């Protein structure tokens, strides 16, 4: 409330602007046409925009801080005693998985952000600039990568406080987070594409929930799949999240599984190769 009042006051006390031909002429400089920026530079500039927006609206970090903390606490204490005898014991198994779940769930915000963002006039300007076309999308996702890293670190810290002691040490945990973030960057393109095709942010949310819930719960995140009925095991086995969790667990355990790692890398490349171009097609048609 008080901020609205201050704005009104500043508005009225500002001197009336009178445009002068000289002042406008002075900024019209035909030499002020630098060469177009590289793809990397344009993408990084959009990444800078994403970070600035986090700075101005820090509340948007709620989903990558509070949500992961809640998930970790909830499932550790809910299942710990029953599944592994003690919460500390269970945490060693759960933490890499819950980290994957939290971060992968966060990817849906990429799609929602794109859907909201693209509806605003500012995208008209971006599209009328002579820049590498995917830069705006890549830049947004670079900002999201920062959020994924943040979410992972929050969970690691919470885990360490609760008694998570990974055998892989700092390097193992860092490698696990790195793998998760790279995979999530590629995975986000699915939602970016949905964000461009679907009409409202609600529908983006609906669709992503519909995919993310079964994908993260019907996996090896919470329990060992060998306790499940056969048909469910079959699904869990082909679920890409299962492979990712296995790979991240391996890294954090100091026991990297090359098979799982290779699988995750192939999936990452495939996601980018399929959903990158589809996203750009939708972007260019908007």
């Amino acid at each position, binding site marked *: 409330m008080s901020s609205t009042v201050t*704005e009104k006051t*500043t*508005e009225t006390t*500002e001197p*009336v*602007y*009178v*445009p*002068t*031909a000289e*002042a*406008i*002429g*002075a*900024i*019209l*400089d*035909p030499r*002020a*046409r*630098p*060469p*177009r*920026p590289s793809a990397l*530079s*344009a993408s990084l*500039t*959009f990444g*800078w*925009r994403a970070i*600035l*927006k986090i700075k*101005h*609206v820090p509340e948007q970090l709620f989903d990558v801080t509070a949500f992961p903390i809640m998930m970790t606490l909830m499932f550790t204490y809910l299942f710990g005693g029953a599944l592994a005898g003690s919460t500390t014991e269970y945490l060693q198994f759960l933490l890499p998985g819950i980290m994957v779940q939290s971060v992968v769930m966060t990817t849906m915000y990429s799609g929602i952000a794109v859907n909201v963002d693209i509806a*605003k*006039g*500012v*995208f*008209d*300007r*971006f*599209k*009328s*600039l*002579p*820049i590498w076309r995917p*830069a705006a999308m890549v830049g947004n996702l670079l900002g999201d990568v920062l959020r994924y890293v943040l979410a992972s670190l929050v969970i690691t810290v919470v885990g360490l406080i609760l008694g998570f002691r990974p055998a892989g040490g700092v390097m193992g945990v860092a490698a696990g987070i790195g793998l998760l973030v790279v995979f999530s960057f590629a995975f986000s393109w699915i939602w970016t594409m949905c964000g461009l095709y679907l009409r409202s942010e609600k529908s983006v949310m609906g669709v992503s929930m519909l995919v993310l819930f079964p994908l993260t719960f019907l996996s090896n995140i919470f329990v060992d799949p060998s306790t499940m009925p056969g048909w469910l095991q079959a699904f869990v086995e082909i679920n890409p999240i299962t492979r990712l969790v296995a790979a991240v667990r391996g890294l954090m355990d100091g026991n990297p599984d090359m098979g799982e790692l290779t699988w995750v890398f192939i999936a990452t490349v495939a996601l980018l190769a399929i959903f990158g171009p589809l996203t750009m097609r939708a972007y260019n048609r908007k």
Partner: protein
Amino acid sequence: MTDTAIETNGLVKVFGDNRAVDGLDLTVPAGAVFGVLGPNGAGKTTAVRMLATLLRPDGGTARVFGHDVMAEADTVRSLVGLTGQYASLDEDMTGRENLILIGRLLGFRHQAARTRAEELLEAFGLTPAGDRLVKNYSGGMRRRLDISATLMNTPRLLFLDEPTTGLDPRSRNQVWDIIRAVVSYGTTVLLTTQYLDEADQLAGRIAVIDHGKLIAEGTPGELKSSVGAGTVNVRLRDAAQRAEAEKILAGVLAAPVIPGPDPVRVTVRVPGHGTERGAAEDAAKALSALAASGIVIDDFSLGQPSLDEVFLALTDHPATPQEDAA
């Protein structure tokens, strides 16, 4: 350097079964303000978005400074700037950050983008508001920031799509002054508007479009005379003489009186407008006839047809004024 900024041939854009732009042929000379006038839904914005490479045409060709908007889209993008109907700004960033962002995306290095942003803020009277989030800007400030962002790399052709829609009169005048300044330094401006006085005030040439087609094109004066008639307005000292005055004027000018609410004011069309005899001669005859009959006139004026009349004549109601002229 070519003298033609824009050339379109049979440009078409179809949305479903709506032919938003339907075979548009337009030639826009460089170095002046070219007005595109049309009612809501006439296809103005669609045409501009195609010319600014934001939409792909479904048919026909469009060239900007000789470059095809489809085959050479990136070249066209580097020559044009667009300020759309709705502010193309990032609401959640400050004015300064918005300008730096656009500067960086246009290839300015970090420090150069900052310097350029300061210059633009200063020229557009936005320096005091530079650190405020754009969502807290007034409509006029937004529009100025929007235009300044578009001028970041000094485009040769500036598209202004209804730049004063929704602005208060003071902000509108500021935008008009900015447009005049920009053109005086050699930038070509394509201005779409549904405000006739805006086109009249700013544009050297005007294209009138309706239902996605060009229906008239020329200088404001040419468009007005194509409608064929101006008006003579007289103000009587004595309202009681109105009936007699109306009879004399209608008789001398051989044209009907245009009814109006003011009891001492009589308005009659001058059919001579646009003919070789000229409107002034007709008006002079009418005034002497009034004087000869002892009718006292306190004030008189000779009016061109307004662009409103031109507009109506060319679009929805073509008959009325042209019948008068004939």
